[in-house]
Each structure stands twice: as structure tokens, then as C-alpha cells.
């Protein structure tokens, strides 16, 4: 995380970190999550989902602060975040054919 002015307690207090989950075929491509994520974690994917919409894709997994805004603003219950304990840990990648 980048700071404009480094807080004095960065060594003790770690910003929360989240992992984003997206159910791609449930998304209707509204872009609400992409536009209003405060950390610009998401971008429109160039791919189509099964319904023909462009779902979001996670471009900055390390920046997610698990604020839950994407989860609450999504009209289709297609995206949410879960807390991740160690901020250094790489995002889980679930591959799918």
C-alpha cells in the first residue's frame, strides 16, 4: 500500500487485506464494482461470460482492503471479498477449464 505520508505505526498496524471472489456467469456487467472500488482493484475483462456480459477481473489483488463495497453495491450478488490474514501472501488462483 502506498502512503502519502507514512503513518508512525505502520510496523505494528497492518492494513486489512482481502481476497476477491467473482461468480462470473452471474454478473450482468453493470460496472458498479469496477467504478466504485476505492482501491481500483478491478477492471472490465475483455472476455464475455455465458450471458454475454463483460465481468470484472481482478487486476490489483494486492490492493484490496476487504472493504466490502463491491459486495454491497453489486446488484447481482456476483462479487464479494473475504479477509486474508497475511498481507504478503499471494492471491489464491483457482484455475478452471
Amino acid at each position: 500500500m502506498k502512503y502519502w505520508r507514512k503513518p508512525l505505526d505502520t510496523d505494528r498496524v497492518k492494513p486489512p487485506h482481502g481476497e476477491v471472489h467473482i461468480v462470473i456467469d452471474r454478473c450482468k456487467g453493470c460496472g458498479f464494482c469496477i467504478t466504485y472500488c476505492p482501491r481500483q482493484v478491478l477492471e472490465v475483462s475483455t472476455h464475455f461470460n455465458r450471458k454475454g456480459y463483460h465481468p470484472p477481473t481482478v487486476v490489483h489483488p494486492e490492493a484490496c482492503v476487504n472493504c466490502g463495497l463491491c459486495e454491497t453495491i453489486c446488484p447481482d450478488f456476483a462479487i464479494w471479498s473475504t479477509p486474508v490474514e497475511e498481507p504478503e501472501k499471494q492471491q489464491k488462483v483457482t484455475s478452471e477449464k
Partner: protein
Amino acid sequence: MSRLGTPFLDRNEHHPLEDYLRMDRIPHIWCPTCGLGTALNCMLHAIKKSGIPRQNIAVVSGIGCSGRAAGYVNLDSFHTTHGRAIPFATGLKLANPKLKVVLFSGDGDLIAIGGNHLIHAARRNIDLTVIGINNFNYAMTGGQFGPTTPEKARMTTAPYGSFEHPFNVPFLVDSCGATYVARWTALHVRHLTNSILEALHHKGFSFIEVISPCSTVYARRNRLGDGLDLLKYYHENSEIRNGINTRKCDITFQGRLIVGKFVDKEKPTYSDTMTKSLSEALGDRYVPYQGPMQGKNGD
């Protein structure tokens, strides 16, 4: 990389609200960039946070796009006839006073055809939590204008723009006697969730107006883009004015939007005044009704 080019799909994960949704009915029918799903999402987050046992909650809707909500929640719910969500909800509340009755319905349903029920429920301060979705039109039937359509907005039945003075909904319910009144937009998800949570714990008639984008009819008829463009309009034009006199909450076409919590006060509810009055008149002969649990087995 997956077939869809994004590695973050995990089909075995479950959305945190899945317990509160009838997942067999998802995806819902609401259009892309419609705000109804967002408002429902906020309502379910608030219900989950409230800690109220799910068997003590009932959700009531009328008819319309907004009215579909009752069919998507995995709680006891009631999809009633057009305009009659409040009478059905009042019946539920009186028959089972321990029930938390939450309404989720549209502006046409609650404020137009159901307007008379609305003013009297507010006047009697019946203990109900009403989430009124104002998308400025009768969306489900194709975009007719109604009593909440801003002046100059074009609708199917107002091709040159509506020339009627619309209701200022917070002022209407406030002046009728509502004891909790707030207005947010579908963009203010945190404020809206918190307001619904407060209203769930408020005793008395609570009304939360949610200004919500209707992309397919309202936005398209008025060439305003889609629902995301309307969220941007809310973002640029909303002014949070908690506690402001509701008289000042008029809505104009694409004008400034006053949002916030306007009223939060205590007043005896319908049940309180009924019990008090009948106890005074009848003394010990009056036994306040406690609900269905007081029947054969409960007493």
C-alpha cells in the same frame, strides 16, 4: 487462466448472503445496471447484521419490478396485490406483534395506488419498516409517469415531459406522522444499510426512500445513459443533510438531491395507543393480544 480469462472464479465459494436468498431464483429478472438488486443487497446485509432471528422477520412487497423482491428472499415473504403491501403488512403485524415486518416495494405501489394506505399507516405509527424504491416511474408496465416523476422528465405517457408537481416523499410521510424518515440513493450503500439497520430497531413507522436507477425505462426515455450514469449523477449531485426539514427535500429533474436521515423520534405506536386506551376503558377485562404463541399451547 480460465476459459474466461480471469483466474478469480471459484464456483465452490458461497456468497455471504446465500442463506438469505432463494438461490434457485437467482439470477433475478432485474435489468443490467438497475439499482433494485443493490437496494435488496443492502436490505439483506442490514437484516443479517441486525441479529434478529430469521423466523421473526417477514418481507412484504407489492407489485412491480421492486415488488419482485419478496420472491427472492429466503425469509417468510408475502408478494401481495398492487398497492396493498401496507395493509397486508399491517395485518401481519397485528396478528403477530412479535414479527419484524419489512416492506420492499416501488414508488408506484406505495405512493401512487397505495398512497392512502401509506398516509394512514404513518399517521397511526404502525411498527413497520418500509423501504420505498423510487425509480421515478411505473417501470414494470413500461414507464408511465406517476406522482413521483420529476417535472419535465419524459415518460411513455408524458412524451413532452411531465407537467405535474411530484410528491416530496420524505415530507409526505413526515407530515403524516412517520417516526423514522431517511432518503438515500442506490449509490449510498453504506448509509443505506445503516439506515435500514436503524429502522429495523426503531419502534414505529419507518420509511426509507431509495432513489434507484431504472436503466431500461427512465434512463432510456430521458436519454440519460444507463444505471451507471445515474449513479454518477447521484455521486455528483447528492448532498447529505441529516436532520434537515423535510420540506426542503423536493426533487427536480437531474437537479440536486438532498439525502440523509431526516426524522428519528419516539412516539407511541398503534399497538401502544390501542393497549393504553382499551386498558383504561376496560381495566382487567382487557388482555392485550400477544400473538399466535398465546393460543391453546402457549397460555
